[in-house]
């Protein structure tokens, strides 16, 4: 690991050195390091690029790190990662992709992550995207996240992309089973001429299924964002979609939350708001001694926290 690798790993996975527990570090399309534990096995896929992660039933309080870094300009990859989480687990999975592009060629990581979450299991999945480097080669990330939640399970999915990624097309699909719960939190900041599209389909298929989508985004400069979260109630269920965006410079945001009820006992709510930072918020923080720039920064960092 060189300094750039360490910076990227710290940014995307808060990693300092070798993590505890199971991990799989992918660097420039090859396996850089891997460790299994008694309960968590990581295997390389034989038919295509990617890994299978098997988590034994009853595994509690273990963490799996699976960061991906790209440091060579011009690498384009499509990776499939599948997670098989047994029943009665309580685990955290920390993913993320960091691209350092100093060259002129496009660097692109497209990851397809599929989760099978067993009965009564709890999973916290975090995925952070980060780009850096002085080259004019684009940094592109197009993640797909597919989750199948078995009865009584719960997933908390946190995705973060703050600066540095030129273009992203994100797709998330969650099938929520009986009495299962999915909480999806998405935080995004785009700047310059970056573009971001995020589509989500949450299917509340089981009786007592519930889900919340919380999206917070900031678009600066000339960047553009599109959100299309769709919540579909196919059973007695509860779903809530909340999209909040702050618009700056000459940026543009389209926010199109959609709720579809295919069952009379499905309760679905959506809220969407786009606006500038309110002037009275800046003024209030200035009366506490911050400059207007510091106040703006503090408001944005809190909003995206």
């Amino acid at each position, binding site marked *: 690991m060189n300094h750039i690798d360490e910076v990227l790993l710290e940014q995307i996975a808060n990693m300092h050195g070798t993590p505890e527990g199971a991990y799989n570090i992918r660097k420039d399309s090859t396996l850089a390091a891997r460790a299994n534990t008694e309960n968590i096995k990581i295997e390389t896929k034989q038919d295509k690029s990617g890994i299978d992660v098997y988590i034994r039933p009853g595994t509690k309080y273990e963490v799996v790190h699976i960061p991906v870094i790209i440091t060579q300009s011009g690498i384009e990859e499509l990776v499939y990662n599948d997670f098989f989480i047994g029943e009665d687990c309580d685990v955290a999975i920390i993913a993320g992709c960091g691209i350092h592009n100093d060259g002129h060629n496009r660097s692109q990581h497209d990851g397809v992550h599929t989760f099978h979450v067993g009965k009564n299991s709890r999973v916290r999945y975090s995925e952070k995207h980060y780009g850096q480097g002085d080259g004019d080669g684009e940094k592109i990330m197009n993640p797909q996240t597919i989750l199948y939640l078995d009865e009584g399970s719960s997933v908390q999915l946190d995705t973060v992309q703050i600066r540095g990624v030129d273009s992203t097309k994100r797709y998330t699909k969650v099938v929520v089973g009986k009495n299962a719960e999915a909480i999806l939190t998405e935080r995004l900041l785009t700047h310059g001429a970056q573009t971001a599209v995020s589509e989500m389909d949450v299917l509340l298929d089981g009786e007592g299924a519930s889900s919340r989508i919380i999206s917070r985004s900031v678009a600066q400069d000339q960047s553009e964002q599109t959100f299309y979260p769709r919540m579909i109630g196919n059973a007695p269920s509860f779903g809530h979609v909340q999209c909040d965006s702050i618009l700056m410079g000459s940026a543009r945001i389209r926010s199109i939350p959609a709720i579809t009820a295919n069952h009379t006992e499905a309760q679905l709510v959506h809220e969407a708001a786009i606006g500038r930072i309110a002037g009275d918020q800046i003024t209030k923080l*200035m009366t506490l001694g911050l*400059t207007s720039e510091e106040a703006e920064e503090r408001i944005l960092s*809190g909003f995206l926290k």
Partner: protein
Amino acid sequence: MLKLEHVSYQVSEGEQTLSILNDINLVVEDGQLIVITGPNGGGKTTLAKVIMGLVTPTSGSITYNGTDITNLGITERAKLGISYGFQQPPRFKGLRVRDLLELASGEDKLSREKCCLYLTRVGLCADDYVDREVDASLSGGEVKRIEIATILARQSGLMIFDEPEAGIDLWSFSRLIDTFQSIRQQRNNTLLIISHQERIISLADEILLVADGQIQQHGSKDDVFPFILSNTVTGCRFMNERADA
């Protein structure tokens, strides 16, 4: 010491010029509790905003502790020790009560005990509030009390409060009165409170009656308060003329 000399503030509305503040002259000594009262639309809030730098006066000068602050911005005045509790404070998605208290106090990590100290003084329990976001999930009265707590945390030499009683329940109001009283007794901070509330007015060292953009009366509570009580008939000129006829 705060000193305003010949401060005026005018706004243009079409071809008309409206005088919101008209030749205000005022000296506030350190450690005093001054209540500014008067009819709605008389210029009280504008006067307070002029002191904080939220409104720039058209003419006149303001000095604070010997420094001419007339042309200073809000941030610079805040750093010199002036703070302002808004009548209708903003909400912040993503900023917690703790964050605002830390920003106000200037301490990176404010202990739970200190947060508790400031919040208790406005009738809030820290356990219930310190980690909550100051967003739409809080009632108007709760946001208002948090706003006042940020001013207490700031510990400024000059604390300005714009109608601190508005929207606050009776129990919290009683607690707030005790807090103002205690600050006054210690005499370390100057309080400038815009209020219509008799219990707050009764705490004052001095009362300023502001109406029609001017200081109509300025004096001790004992001198000014009886005058205010005997002059509370306001309203419609037409009705008053009919009554006189």
